């Protein structure tokens, strides 16, 4: 268990800079998820922390010790790889014991540790099997077992669930969470799956094109996305974006249809721009009576998913396209005008050029 600090870490491959200065303080026992689309540099960041790549500039500290120039072996970390990277010629036991043997532990100690880890992960029956005789989920658990036995300061996960089928993924996600709660080892977890990220993370680092778009708890990221990228990346279906004009006092906005929406609290306090980008999540539209309505939606297609219903349509007449998510199964005719209302705290306003949050 340890804390870790990443300070202004940059990485270039040749002339191409892929990480443009990432900073984050990771507290003892925290579960950090690095989330981002493919190619955003999230795996590179993890590999820098692991020591599999050399950082170009910046500092990485594990427990107040600068590890920039340390070999992976000397950083006291353990890593679960996307393809598990189990040694195919060794039994499950030897796979887990490999790192311990190298650290010259006694046979007794190695046996104890491996058996204890195997028990936690329900692998006791499989210790004499070779990796090829295991199912995907079992291999995944062996990969984690190999990390647990080492009792490292830092756990690194590189998209560990992406090779599993959907059902197993949900199950392993819970197991990882449970494991973290019982062992409480500081963990850094890379994924492109936002459900994994939201459920596992104590804090999220949302990455975009080599920048950290936002660092915060899953709810902070969901409720107050720092920029348009984060807002659009988190949530499914994605947030609706459309252009609007700021109203005079900065506490409301006016849509192209002429209708307006209220902003919460202070609203937008300082902006020179008249035109802004507004974001509203599909699940935050509320259908209401005509006299309370702020905006109107012209319905187009309706998708009934069982648990909820997605309504696609346009603002009033020929406005921007919108998607709504409503609970349960609901019926709407096409070309119907729905009166709607949005809570002020659910209206997000972004700078049209930079995409930064304004309210």
């Amino acid at each position, binding site marked *: 268990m340890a804390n870790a600090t990443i300070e202004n870490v940059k990485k270039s491959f040749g002339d191409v800079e892929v990480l443009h200065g990432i900073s984050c303080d990771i507290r003892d026992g925290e579960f950090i998820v690095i989330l981002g689309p493919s190619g955003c540099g999230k795996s590179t960041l993890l590999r820098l922390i692991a020591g599999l790549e050399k950082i170009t500039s910046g500092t990485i500290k594990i427990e107040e010790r600068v590890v920039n120039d340390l070999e992976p*072996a000397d950083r006291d970390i*353990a890593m679960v790889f996307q393809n598990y990277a189990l040694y195919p010629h060794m039994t499950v036991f030897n796979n887990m014991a490999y790192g311990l043997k190298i650290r010259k532990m006694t046979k007794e100690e190695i046996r104890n540790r491996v058996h204890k880890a195997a028990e936690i992960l329900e692998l006791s029956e499989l210790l004499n099997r070779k990796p090829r005789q295991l199912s995907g989920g079992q291999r995944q658990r062996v990969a984690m077992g190999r990390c647990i036995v080492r009792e490292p300061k830092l756990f690194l996960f590189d998209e560990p669930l992406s090779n599993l089928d959907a059902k197993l993924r949900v199950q392993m996600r819970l197991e990882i969470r449970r494991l973290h709660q019982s062992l409480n080892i500081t963990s850094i977890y890379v994924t492109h799956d936002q459900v994994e990220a939201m459920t596992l993370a104590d804090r999220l680092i949302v990455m975009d094109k080599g920048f950290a778009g936002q660092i915060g708890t899953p709810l902070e990221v969901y409720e107050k996305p720092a920029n348009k990228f984060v807002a659009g990346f988190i949530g499914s279906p994605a947030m609706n974006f459309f252009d609007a004009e700021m109203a005079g006092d900065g506490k409301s906005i006016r849509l192209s249809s002429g209708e307006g929406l209220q902003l919460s609290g202070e609203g937008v306090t300082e902006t020179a721009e008249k035109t802004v980008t507004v974001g509203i999540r599909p699940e935050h539209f509320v259908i209401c009576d005509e006299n309370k309505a702020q905006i109107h939606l012209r319905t187009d297609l309706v998708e009934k998913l069982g648990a909820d219903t997605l309504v696609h349509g346009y603002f009033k007449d020929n406005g921007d396209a919108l998607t709504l998510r409503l609970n349960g199964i609901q019926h709407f005719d096409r070309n119907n005008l729905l009166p709607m209302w949005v809570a002020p705290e659910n209206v997000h306003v972004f700078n049209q050029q930079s995409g930064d949050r304004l309210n």
Partner: protein
Amino acid sequence: MEKQRVVFNNKVLPYMLLAPQVAITLVFFIWPASQSLFLSVLQQDPFGLSSTFVWFDNFSTIFTDEIYRKSLGTTAIFSLLVTLASMSVALLLAVLANRVLFTGRVYKTLIIWPYAVATMVAGVLWYFLFNPTAGIISHLLKSMNYDWNHGLYEGQAFFLVVFASVWRQVSYNFIFFLAGLQSIPPSLIEASAIDGASPFRRFWTIVFPLLSPTSFFLIVVNVVYAFFDTFGVVDAITGGGPNHATDIMVFKVYHDGFKGLDYGGSAAQSVILMGVVILLTIIQFRYIERKVHY
């Protein structure tokens, strides 16, 4: 998942498709092999006009022959050295090439070249380089006060044929080792690095075991190479001498048969040679292959 099956209604077609391969095997393997089996139990008269059936007299003659027994020993040491040396040198080069990123392509191409050189040409090449009167290398050795004459000293002659044989085979082994190394997922090496293994230990505990299918295949191929294909090297460099120091079995078969004109004895030797290689291959498949699969 259902496999797609191609059905031929023509009953003759499969045999026709097999025919070229069968014909080649028959003409170049079965026929000569049965010829030598047949010849090995015959004794020809000095003028080659008639032959007598002599049972296994040819075999008993060979095994009481001091020179032939020396040849067995020479062949054993020779093939062991050639196999070991060419494989370990190739593995070393492949590991180095696998690490090199930029100049790798040139290096790889150059290393593969010797394989394109015919065995005989390779032999002649080294013969000239080491020629006691005209060779550059022997000249250099002489300037360092080392007396090089592989026509005179058994050890030097033996070293030279081993060296030339290894030189050529390294290329072949290199290609396979490099391909084997490149098929090992990098994440395995990274995982063992994180587990704390030193580069040396990573190699012996992860890379080398994972290369074992390649190594096994190469052992089989290299032993066969050392037993048969090295004929050209020996013929070009030493002609089996001095004092039979480089008289490996395959060369002796040729020499006794076509130079000594002892067809029966030569055929008997080739039968023994065939038996030895078959036996070695069976042993390799039975005992080594079992340890290969993981």
